[in-house]
């Protein structure tokens, strides 16, 4: 019997029980599709975090102050003096001290809580890679005059103003009136905080009307270029240690981090996320595999009897094995292929705010595993049945 004839037999076998064939294929399809798509979502979110972080500015160094428990005998607060001193470092382009406070913003009847109301210097905008979309940024002059002007993030603008043009409007921040002079360009989410929900005003204005003249929260430093970030960080660290009389560097009263480090930790988090999704996907593949196994095992009795009949009619063992192997291959390859196609098609849509990015190795793995399961459980019972005496196969229960 020619291969083509056996292939036709196998096609007829698949077609003879459409429900069973359909369920088997569906099981493989869902298993493969779930794995590919979930891994793609994890990978996509990792990629998105990476891109958004890059957009935050890669030359920046942040000094976070006010670490409790660090006893030096001197004040452990960051001050404007210290910030001023950092300007002397040769690889530093700009130094922007930051005070941050959480305030309620009001405009007319609408109000909106903003976690990050920032008081700083104009250098902050370039250091944090925050260009203006509408209006203008405040200047050094505004800082000198402690002008009550504010630049707001894009989310804040929509929350507070809806359709009104915010430029030139006067808003209340913690009960004090500020004039909106600019709206920042949208950045997109970089994890758990929304960088677009912010309001930025000149440092003295914020201190005078909102926070008082206490210590500053952090200092944002911009290095002259991306290559000198670590050099700048070393210089800044040296100045800070000198100014704050730090002897034991392990218990320094501040933390200093650059964007690259931030990027690394965030990317790590995203990768953990991918691994978790992969694990969920692997479980779904396993469950799918058990489903396939179950369907194939349930039909063993019927198929064993059928094999008995075929043997009684003089079918050579090779022909029987080939037929059943082709049937199993058709079901698992077609099911797996459809699953992969469905997943790749699904990956072109945004899922839960994430644009999935398909990982080729996940496609190979998912297809490999499901096809292997399908082939094994499709052909193993058949090969066992083909080895029986016809009468035993016919009587199989």
């Amino acid at each position, binding site marked *: 019997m020619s291969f083509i004839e056996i292939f036709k*037999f196998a096609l007829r076998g698949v077609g003879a029980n459409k429900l069973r064939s359909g369920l088997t294929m569906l099981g493989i399809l869902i298993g493969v599709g779930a794995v590919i798509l979930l891994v793609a979502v994890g990978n996509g979110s990792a990629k998105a975090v990476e891109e958004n972080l890059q957009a935050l500015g890669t030359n920046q160094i942040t000094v976070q102050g006010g670490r409790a428990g660090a006893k030096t005998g001197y004040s452990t607060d960051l001050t404007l003096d210290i910030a001023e001193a950092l300007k002397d470092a040769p690889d530093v382009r700009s130094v922007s001290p930051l005070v941050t406070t959480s305030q309620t913003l009001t405009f007319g009847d609408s109000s909106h809580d903003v976690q990050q109301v920032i008081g700083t210097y104009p250098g902050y905008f370039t250091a944090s890679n925050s260009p203006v979309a509408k209006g203008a940024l405040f200047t050094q002059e505004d800082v000198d005059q402690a002008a009550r002007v504010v630049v707001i993030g894009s989310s804040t603008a929509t929350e507070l103003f809806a359709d009104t043009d915010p430029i030139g409007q006067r808003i209340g921040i913690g009960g004090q009136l500020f004039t909106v002079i600019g709206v920042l360009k949208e950045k997109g989410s970089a994890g758990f905080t929304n960088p677009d929900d912010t309001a930025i005003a000149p440092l003295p204005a914020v201190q005078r009307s909102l926070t008082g003249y206490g210590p500053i929260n952090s200092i944002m430093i911009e290095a002259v270029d991306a290559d000198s970030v670590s050099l700048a960080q070393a210089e800044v660290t040296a100045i800070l240690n000198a100014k704050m009389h730090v002897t034991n560097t392990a218990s320094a009263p501040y933390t200093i981090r650059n964007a690259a480090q931030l990027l690394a930790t965030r990317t790590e988090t995203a990768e953990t996320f991918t691994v978790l999704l992969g694990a969920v996907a692997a479980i779904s593949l396993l469950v799918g595999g058990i489903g396939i196994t179950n369907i194939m095992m349930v039909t063993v009795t*019927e198929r064993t009897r059928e094999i008995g009949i075929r*043997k009684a*009619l003089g079918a050579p063992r090779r022909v029987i094995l080939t037929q059943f192997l082709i049937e199993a291959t058709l079901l698992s390859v077609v099911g797996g292929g459809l699953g992969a196609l469905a997943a790749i098609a699904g990956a072109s849509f945004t899922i839960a705010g994430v644009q999935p990015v398909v990982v080729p190795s996940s496609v190979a793995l998912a297809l490999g595993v499901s096809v292997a399961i399908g082939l094994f459980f499709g052909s193993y019972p058949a090969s066992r049945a083909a080895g029986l*005496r016809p009468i035993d196969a016919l009587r199989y229960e």
Partner: protein
Amino acid sequence: MNVIEVQDLHKTYGHGEATVRALDGVTATVPRGDYVAIMGSSGSGKSTLMNIIGCLDVPSSGTYRLDGVDVSELDESQLALVRNRKIGFIFQSFNLIARTSALANVELPLAYAGIKPKERRERALAALEMVGLTDRAAHDPNQLSGGQQQRVAIARALVTEPALLLADEPTGNLDSHSTEDVMGIFSELSGYGRTIVLITHEDDVAAAAKRVIRLRDGRII
């Protein structure tokens, strides 16, 4: 020349207390062109003997020669060839392949014999016509009555024109009219010189045969 030669065949099932001696020393010969009816009460070992003769089962002891060849010396693929070319087997319980049309069922042995689709179809249709089921060729087994299924099974056994036709109660599910048709087919085949062995409980079916072998408790009487 004897088509079938069985010598001192034994077949036992189970062990110890529960041992059943389905065949207990059967010796018989069937010459070419013979038409034999096997009779005996239920459980006397008729089907067991038939399955061994049809190369579907093997005896516990004793020898079976088919066309002078000791069947126990044939390997798997040679046995498949023997089942396909030499023997047409009609089962007590039809054993048609489910969800497969009557025509495809009848074509099956021809396919395994390597016959081309066109000739296969013609011969299968001819065999179905012989059993009067031309108009049911496209029906699946579950759309056929018991008698019609039996006739499809007969057509499938006849279609390869085997030298040896074995039938386990071929008329057990048929009314008297269909029984006459089937017996007519057997007589015709016998007239062409085919060797036929059939099992039956009916005396008038046995009467059409040239001779009758009676079994009781696994022995010929």
